């Protein structure tokens, strides 16, 4: 099974990386973007059950005080179906707002130290199974934003296309 785990900053805590990106966006004289939120993404691929994945999310990947998570089940290319939300995340909260999403992932073969560390931590949890982990970054950009602007933000700030690829949706 393959699951995608997205980490959210809980309400009431600052999404610092998002704020930082927003100020960098302003530095590029790009307007219209009013807010940025950042979420780390992890794809766990291997022989993990759903409940084991939930344990990985809650014990290893989140900070219990400031963060929560959503787990999605992945088909080969697409991770869409939400199958678990920690109690204070509601993806539906965003639905009334204008926003775009940029996801950034390392290209194949590029060293990804965070993923290697997650694999170690999962083993320490007592889950002795062969898994692959991928670590990515998800940015929610709020406002009415043109595609060309999104591309600009992605290539000038968020991704170095030499080693990373990005998706806009």
């Amino acid at each position: 099974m393959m699951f995608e785990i997205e980490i959210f900053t809980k309400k009431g805590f600052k999404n610092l990386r998002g704020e930082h990106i927003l100020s960098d966006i302003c530095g590029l004289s790009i307007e219209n973007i009013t807010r940025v939120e950042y979420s780390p993404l992890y794809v766990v691929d291997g022989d993990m059950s759903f409940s084991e994945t939930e344990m990985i999310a809650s014990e290893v990947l989140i900070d219990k005080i400031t963060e929560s998570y959503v787990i999605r089940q992945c088909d080969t290319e697409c991770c869409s179906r939400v199958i678990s939300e920690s109690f204070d995340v509601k993806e539906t909260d965003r639905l009334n707002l204008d926003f775009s999403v940029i996801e950034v992932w390392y290209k194949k073969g590029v060293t990804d130290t965070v993923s290697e560390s997650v694999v170690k931590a999962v083993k320490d949890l007592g889950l002795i199974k062969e898994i692959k982990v991928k670590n990515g970054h998800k940015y929610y950009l709020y406002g009415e934003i043109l595609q060309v602007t999104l591309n600009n933000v992605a290539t000038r700030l968020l991704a170095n296309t030499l080693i990373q690829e990005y998706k806009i949706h």
Partner: protein
Amino acid sequence: MKCTARCETIKILNLSDEELFELSRKNVLSMSLEEMRVIQNYFKKLKREPTDVEIETIAQTWSEHCKHKTLTGAVEYTEEKDGEKTKRTYNNLLGETIFKASVELDKPWCLSIFKDNAGIIEFDSENGVAFKVETHNHPSALEPYGGSATGVGGVIRDILGVGLGAKPLASTDVFCFGDPDIEISKVPEGVHHPKRIIKGVVSGVRDYGNRIGIPTVNGTVYFDDGYISNPLVYCGTMGIIPKNKIDKKIESGDLVLVVGGKTGRDGIHGATFSSIQLDKESDVSAVQIGNPIIEKKVLDTMIKARDLNLYRAVTDCGAGGLSSAVGELGEKTGAVVYLDKVPLKYNGLCPWEIWISEAQERMVFAVPPRNIEKIIEIFEKENVEAVCIGEFTDDKKLTLMYDNDIVASMDMEFLHNGVPKPIKSAFYKMKEEKVQKPVEMSSFEVSNSLNSLLADLNICSKEWIVRQYDHEVQGQTVIKPLQGNNIEISGPGDAAVIFPYTVVKGTKKGIVLSNGLNPQYGKINPYNMAASAIEESLRNAVAVGADIRRISILDNFCWGNPNHPEILGSLVQAMEACYDISKAFEVPFISGKDSLHNEYSINGKKYSIPSTLLISAMGIIENVENTVTMSLKKDGNKIFVLGITRNELGGSVFSKIRNIEGGIVPGVYHRESKDIMEKIYSAMSENLIEACHDCSEGGIVVAVSEMAFSANKGVKVDIDAIKIYSYLEERCRSGREMTPAEILFSESNGRFIVEVEPDNEEKFKKILDGSIFSEVGYVSDDKEVIFESKKNNVKIRQNSEILLNSWRNTINW
């Protein structure tokens, strides 16, 4: 020779010159036609075609990055002065300049110079200290974060790989960037905006250095539009090594052990790539990402293995990967390596890729067979991968195996000494320097200029960068990069001092690190740029308490394309200056590195960087308690200017911001200057000096202001009391006296600002007797920084807090 499916034979025996050259270009080998011909001849003698592994191995070993063909090659040099041309031939440019100076100086405390991964000097009777500075320019241009991080990781491995391994104590970082405020539309296509590069480079250094736990204690950042397309990233590391661990010796039968990271396709062609101009479609695999934690684990474990004498030699995998590391270690013996045993990150690598990959965090050890189990146990106990991949032989050949097939077999002699030495021509035309028109300014204008200078990118506070680096990890940084009398305010220190008390128990000694760099001077006068850079690095070290008799220096040349005679000519000028100044100050070079070909072409137009020489200094301090900082200490103390002020505004920051034409580039007057440096050390040994600051960019007015605002104090300086050179002196002949602005902003070398307590004044003056110096003012209890010339009716008065704010608000992202 048999080849597996993963290894190809390259047909070169019957290729024409054009085809040979095309082969080199197509496969990113960066080899000249002449080199390709030598290879062709070698294999003609062997009566067979080479394999791809062999061709790649030769390309790596012969690369500019590994062999430094230009610097150690022959140069036909022509110099033109006043219409007359003189010629000189160098058989080995480095050998006849920098290296020669060190050989002639023959300092007994130089323990290992120009032969290992780093230079080593004596620290005390038991230990030596090693220092190395590297560049990582091209990767940092393409992937600033990964490029600078692996730059740090790489130079740390140089220190781990010197002798039998030194323990790193501190790092230095020097960067050259384009203007961070440039409009995005003016940035050439395919180039990252300077601000993105800066942020990426700083984060890369931060994340690697902080994680591995080596304090980044010294550095500088230099801005010039010439670096927009091609930033420079210099990384240095200093480490400590027991004297009895300095020599490597390999015996036939020793095993080849590769330790640390796994091998992937990262950084294939890094070594040859660094000799290629950057263009829009630069090779993807040239970019590498580092993992500092793996390197930290290697550090932790290898020092343990070193102290148990479990291996006979070690070196790092840098440019050229295993091919360089094993090649170097086995040069005298020969080696056989089983490439299929090398641990891989993923499957699918060809033998030649395994052999030349520049995957990070790997070290190669030569281990006697009896110790192999024990050493592997030490590594594995802390989760460090260690795999035996071959052995050192006695056949003086390099043999590479893959799945029981021989995929390469070449003579070490050919590999290491077969490269044809190119002969390059160099030309330099001396530029005439003239004193600028008298700079007449009102008090108000001088005041304004002072604030602009403090806010200038090349003078302003780099606190935003410095505080992101953990410059105090290991607890040994006793002279810090930012200095003040309390913890709220600080100014720019001249140098850093490490007190290695956790490694050398009971020691009182310290190690000082500093640097000198001024590319602006080089645009007018490369000789004096190099001379000034050396002197500045020495001044910086002396200012915190170093003994000039125990300082060594490192050179790092970043130049444009050396195939242009003018560019190579300026390099010759700089290297001649290195010889002269090293000899004059009796300060030996112990190591160095060059990065040539710093050029970038867009739409056929070539951009080249300003010729840039970084000098890094390392010295030993007898007693760290005698070191001083640059902030003023006490009201009523006296201020002295040591050294003489000449009319030298050429290439100065003041000339740049005021658009002043002409001007003479500061020269080095070693007799005056060395004498003062020695006396400062004597005075500091008797604790007669409260604060000391080097006088360089921005001149006296900036140096004094920095000393005042970092202490939140005032100061009063009488401009008329500053010793200036008689206008009859030849180089600065102008037939006139200097104006107050010229005195304040001139960047003459050899000067220090010193604070002395009134009670110590007599003793201090006695030590300085015979040198040129003068008392110019005193520390005051208000916060007013005042410079006054009654003779010229000029008075500058500025609040030190306002000056502080001018200085620290430029880079504050």
